[in-house]
């Protein structure tokens, strides 16, 4: 009797502690990890490759010189000033037009609208707008801002002006702002709204004093990220005239002249330079990309920093 008892426990021990060779499982897990690492590897290779390609430029010139030089057919002196300036101005358009409109729309859809056919169809429309390819927004800009409103947006350049570009980008980014803001608003617990209403607050007072402060970090992050998205877009700008590369920012150009004049932007410049055959432009393109990535990094960093800072102040 005693021996059989010992045997059983031995068997059980062996079963439970023996290392089961699950080769398939291990291979599978590693395969998944490889898939992930491959994607990140590509990212790393891309960043490395671009940086290396751009080194000739940094050896020859300073960063400031590269930034401030104007466009030129000569790769030794060409700089990105117009494109940089253009991109910055376009971002201003996005911030000034798309963000207030988008946030306000989202406030209406989440806080005022009753759930019914109207609000549901608006929500569906916005979701679909967010999935429309960016070049189609370029068509919209071409048809409306360039052709239809050409006399207002850019009378000297047949409408292919900075204003048209800025409006096009603002329209492109608008659905994204609405969606991210709506999500941030929805994340505010209903109990806060109830409490405010119970104390006699109107709907606007509730939104302004309670809902928005709590949703603000999320809204801020979403809007800044949409600015980053607009910054990287080239296709819509191509259609609206951004490829016309040379625009003069002379000392005598007024603000309105610049708004209504030809423009360029950094992503568009990447496109033009990448197609030029001269060897010098290859490293120039890489240097431009490096600058673009740094700007993007700064924008994203600002978004995360602001979000963290505001979230503490609750």
């Amino acid at each position: 009797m005693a021996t059989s008892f010992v045997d059983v426990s031995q068997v059980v021990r062996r079963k439970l502690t023996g290392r089961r060779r699950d080769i398939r499982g291990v291979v599978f897990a590693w395969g998944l990890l490889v898939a992930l690492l491959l994607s990140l590897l590509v990212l790393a290779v891309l960043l490395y490759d671009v940086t290396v390609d751009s080194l000739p430029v940094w050896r020859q010139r300073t960063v400031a010189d590269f930034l401030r030089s104007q466009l030129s057919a000569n790769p030794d002196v060409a700089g990105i000033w117009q494109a940089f300036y253009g991109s910055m101005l376009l971002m201003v358009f996005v911030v000034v037009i798309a963000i207030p409109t988008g946030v306000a729309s989202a406030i209406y859809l989440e806080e005022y609208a009753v759930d019914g056919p109207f609000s549901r169809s608006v929500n569906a429309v916005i979701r679909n707008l967010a999935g429309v390819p960016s070049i189609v927004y370029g068509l919209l800009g071409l048809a409306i801002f360039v052709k239809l409103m050409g006399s207002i947006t850019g009378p000297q350049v047949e409408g292919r002006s900075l204003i048209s570009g800025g409006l096009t980008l603002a329209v492109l980014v608008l659905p994204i702002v609405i969606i991210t803001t709506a999500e941030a608003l929805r994340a505010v617990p209903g109990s806060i709204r109830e409490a405010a209403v119970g104390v006699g607050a109107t709907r606007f007072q509730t939104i302004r004093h309670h809902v928005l402060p709590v949703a603000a970090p999320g809204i801020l992050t979403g809007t800044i990220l949409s600015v980053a998205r607009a910054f990287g877009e080239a296709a819509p700008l191509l259609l609206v005239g951004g490829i016309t590369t040379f625009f003069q920012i002379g000392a005598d150009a007024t603000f309105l002249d610049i708004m209504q004049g030809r423009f360029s932007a950094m992503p568009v410049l990447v496109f033009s330079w990448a197609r030029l055959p001269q060897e010098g432009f290859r490293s120039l393109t890489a240097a431009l990309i490096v600058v673009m990535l740094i700007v993007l990094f700064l924008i994203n960093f600002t978004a995360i920093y602001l979000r963290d800072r505001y979230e503490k102040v609750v």
Partner: protein
Amino acid sequence: MRRDIEHQSDEMLLERRRPVIGVSRAAMQEEKVGRSTVIEVTDLGVYYGDFKAVSDVNMSIRQNEITALIGPSGCGKSTIIRCFNRMNDLIPTARVEGRVEYHGVDLYGEEVDPVEVRRHIGMVFQKPNPFPKSIYDNIAFGPRIARYRGDLDDLVEESLRKAALWDEVKDKLGESGLALSGGQQQRLCIARAIATSPDVVLMDEPCSALDPIATLRIEELMFDLKDEYSIIIVTHNMQQAARVSDRTAFFNVTLDDTGQRTGYLVEFNSTDAIFTSPNEKATEDYITGRFG
């Protein structure tokens, strides 16, 4: 006679508990008759779309009393109490029939602004929901939006004293309201509700998320508040209703042939009468625990 709730220890509070049954006849005779009505409910029915949640309620809430609404879950107690401050307006499909008169004014009249109603009739919710702001701002918010012209600091202190919370938080008014314990948060919500100087305070199961000691503190608080405000409390805890209220309304659910559950008022009387000699069998069954 202001009982000093804040400085009583938990043990002293426990000893003070009123017996549930056995209130003397003398005590019943003390009850003032002829107190004025603050809210008059006539044939109140509430619909959510086609679903009839509550049917044909008739009752009068008296001034400076604590009125309890009790009954099994799903009988519409919360729905009814939310009619008194038009909180049901927040639900798009909700529809109210009948009349709810506050000092003679029909709350659902054409001219009535719900925002104004809520400044006269305050509410404390089941789960404490202080604003994610400082304790001071929690209380000051209501008066500020009502354009209070007086000294806010005084008002905040007075509200906190009345809610028996002042001594515990007077040194940390700038801290977040969410940093308090559950019971303290609910007292903060009570202070917030009374800061707008309402007439009536509605309490929708205010203690159900709290531990027994915190519950006792709030019940003690209600006795003091009754001097200045009229309190209507929904509670699923019968013993609480018996401890605390002057009058009690018992609600029940009916099931019609389509399976719809509709709440209705069974009996409304003084608390002692309801708990010692109810008129309806359903009431008696409920309080003796045969259902619910």
